[in-house]
């Protein structure tokens, strides 16, 4: 204890950051705005996005200053992601901030397009990450897009924020995997369950693209991006779950049935207590992952897998309980609960399911376990 920066203890600057983002979201991204954008064609307001990048400056907090970012750490960005998740901020939060920007940062010195990175951080342009994953980790065998002569051919499904201005695309080039940049390709928007987090199928047919990296450099950048994306997605999940818990507790404290607040019934109170535990666990694992990636203090694979396994389950469970404890009103279109439930279901399926992350955890902690000493078994 008592290090200058202690894991889990937010600095005063980070607390200010949190308050600023929360205020911005409350003023500019209230539920009405979120609903309006959710029902719009693109699901996204470029002007608002530019304000998040410019005025507020919270889209590239972990990007080094020399690359046009704020030069902070991933924990800063996680603080922002938590608030974004709480407010259900629509737009390319995951595609651009969660995946594309970290990939570009990882490519620093190796083909990095600094102008692009700066414009993404400013919110002037958007990007998505057209790289298939298996359980949130990169598997070259899944790459079906091919590159020949500076052009891409193939299809990637379920690209989050896939209608963004530019795409980072994993493609086979000869025997290797490369990471390519293109603003082309056919973008076929999908009809998503969560209209605040859009996806598209992306089709390339001799689409011109520029190589950012090939071989080990490309794979390292992809792996880094998927890890950061997993940690930031977990922070978003924490924010959504906390917001649903808060709203449920507020409702249970004021809604009267049988002449008393429903929160005075143990059936309701104890479920809220269980939601509290879920949210606390989610927050601990999400921020531990951000700290571990930022400071290199833990196995990044394990930290992210624990966060994703925990947060995906917690958010879904909390959102479902929230609907239940609101009763009929929580099932209506007018109430916000379903917006969070749909986000929770969506986030749980992105960058690896909880089951897939548990499998990774099992590989890391069980497969090498030894049976030295310890617990005995009575053998009759």
């Amino acid at each position, binding site marked *: 204890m008592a290090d200058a920066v202690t894991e889990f203890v937010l600095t005063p600057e980070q607390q200010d950051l949190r308050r600023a983002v929360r205020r911005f979201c409350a003023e500019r991204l209230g539920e009405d705005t979120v609903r309006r954008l959710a029902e719009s064609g693109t699901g996204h307001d470029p002007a608002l996005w530019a304000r998040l990048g410019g005025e507020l400056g919270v889209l590239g907090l972990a990007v080094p200053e020399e690359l046009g970012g704020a030069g902070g750490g991933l924990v800063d960005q996680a603080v922002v992601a938590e608030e974004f998740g709480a407010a259900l901020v629509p737009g390319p939060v995951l595609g651009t901030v969660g995946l594309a920007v970290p990939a570009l940062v990882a490519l620093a010195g190796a083909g990095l397009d600094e102008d692009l990175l700066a414009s993404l951080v400013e919110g002037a342009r958007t990007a998505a990450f057209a790289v298939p994953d298996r359980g949130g980790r990169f598997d070259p065998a899944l790459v079906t897009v091919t590159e020949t002569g500076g052009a891409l051919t193939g299809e990637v499904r379920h690209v989050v924020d896939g209608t963004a201005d530019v795409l980072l695309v994993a493609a086979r080039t000869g025997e290797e995997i490369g990471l390519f940049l293109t603003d082309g390709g056919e973008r076929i928007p999908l009809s998503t369950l969560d209209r605040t987090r859009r996806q598209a199928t992306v089709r390339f047919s001799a689409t011109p693209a520029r190589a950012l990296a090939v071989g080990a450099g490309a794979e390292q950048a992809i792996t880094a991006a998927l890890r950061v994306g997993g940690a930031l997605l977990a922070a978003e999940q924490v924010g959504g779950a906390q917001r649903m818990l808060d709203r449920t507790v507020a409702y249970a404290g004021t809604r009267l*049935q049988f002449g008393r607040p429903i929160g005075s019934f143990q059936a309701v109170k104890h479920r809220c207590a269980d939601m509290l535990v879920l949210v606390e666990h989610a927050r601990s694992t999400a921020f531990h992952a951000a700290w571990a990636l930022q400071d290199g203090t833990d196995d990044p694979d394990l930290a992210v897998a624990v966060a994703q396994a925990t947060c995906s389950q917690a958010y879904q469970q909390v959102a479902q309980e929230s609907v239940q404890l609101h009763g009929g009103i929580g099932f209506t279109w007018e109430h916000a609960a379903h917006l969070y439930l749909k986000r929770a279901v969506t986030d749980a399926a992105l960058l690896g399911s909880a089951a897939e992350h548990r499998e990774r955890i099992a590989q890391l902690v069980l497969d090498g376990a030894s049976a030295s000493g310890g617990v005995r078994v009575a053998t009759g």
Partner: protein
Amino acid sequence: MDDRARVEKAAHEVVEEHDPRSVPVREFLAAWFAAGLTWVHFPEGLGGLGVSRGLQARANAILQGAGGPNPFFLNPIGHGMAAATVLEHGSRELAQELLPPLATGEHIWCQLFSEPGAGSDLAGLATSAVLDGDEWVVNGQKVWTSFAHRARYALLLARTDPDQPKHKGLTYFVLDMHAPGVETRPLRQMTGQAEFNEVYLTDARIPDTHRLGAVGNGWRVAMTTLMNERSAIGGSSSVRGAGAIADAVELWARYPQRHTPVLRDKLAALWTRAEAQRLTDERARRSATSGSPGPEGSIAKLVSAELNQHVYEFCMELIGPEATLYGDYTQRDAERNEDYRGPVQQRFLRSRANTIEGGTSEVLRNILGERILGLPGDLRADAGKPWKEVPRG
């Protein structure tokens, strides 16, 4: 001729004289009613033959065997709740007026019980009915009403005496949904659909002859209706593997590339639970001495609601990335007798209401604990207090 033979003879005559495959449905059902086959245990002249309720299954088998319709699905609230309530608590004249068009589906029925401020605490409802000459003047707002936009009549529970404790100040009515002051608005759900309605009552008038049961006796009348409702919602299919679990098994077969041993075990556990509940329903049905729905309905409702949710949670996990897609949120007014359940993502969302509608799982666990196991009741904040003095909101 014993009762069974009498029922069979009457049923065979109706389907011979009015081939249900060619005669218009209402005409056929009018003949079915006239023959006393709609509810065989009802009195003669009111759609019955005055025989044991158990023989209804025999009549229905003949009806279905001849390709006839299921009258219940044409008018679920009418058949499932209204008919028995009207018969038991209305005058014979009222029953003679209301039952024939109910039986044929000409008059669809709905139920006006729940209110925004009275969900689990149904007896706390606030809609008022005040006597004015020989008519009652009704004001209030009802919610979660299926079929309201198509219904001709409603079962209405309203407060007639706010000075009484909440259960004692209620009276039960039949409301003409075409009366002035009755306004129906669709209520959109998280699925995008509007399966239910809100109903606003503004000085709507009901003749006193359309009161069911005594003034102040509405709660007791409503209990019959609710028992029937829970039984109807909860009653699982008697066919093994049918219902929600069938969706999961079909999806399992369609997504072999998504199979894992863990999901396989999960689905087997869900299937086993569905089967255990099916057998429990079957056991309750067979060992029931009376024909009226008892507390077993509460077990069925509790289990099937939670099981439905777990089944569709499983389905969403099984289909993986596709769970993040959704066809169409365009608002549509859904009706129970078409396939309103949609694709599996919609079924998942719809299942979230299963543990709320028709009695929350929390209320049902109280019922199981108190009425079946005999555990003591909750401490009550509103016990014995005049309704108007109990805090609401």
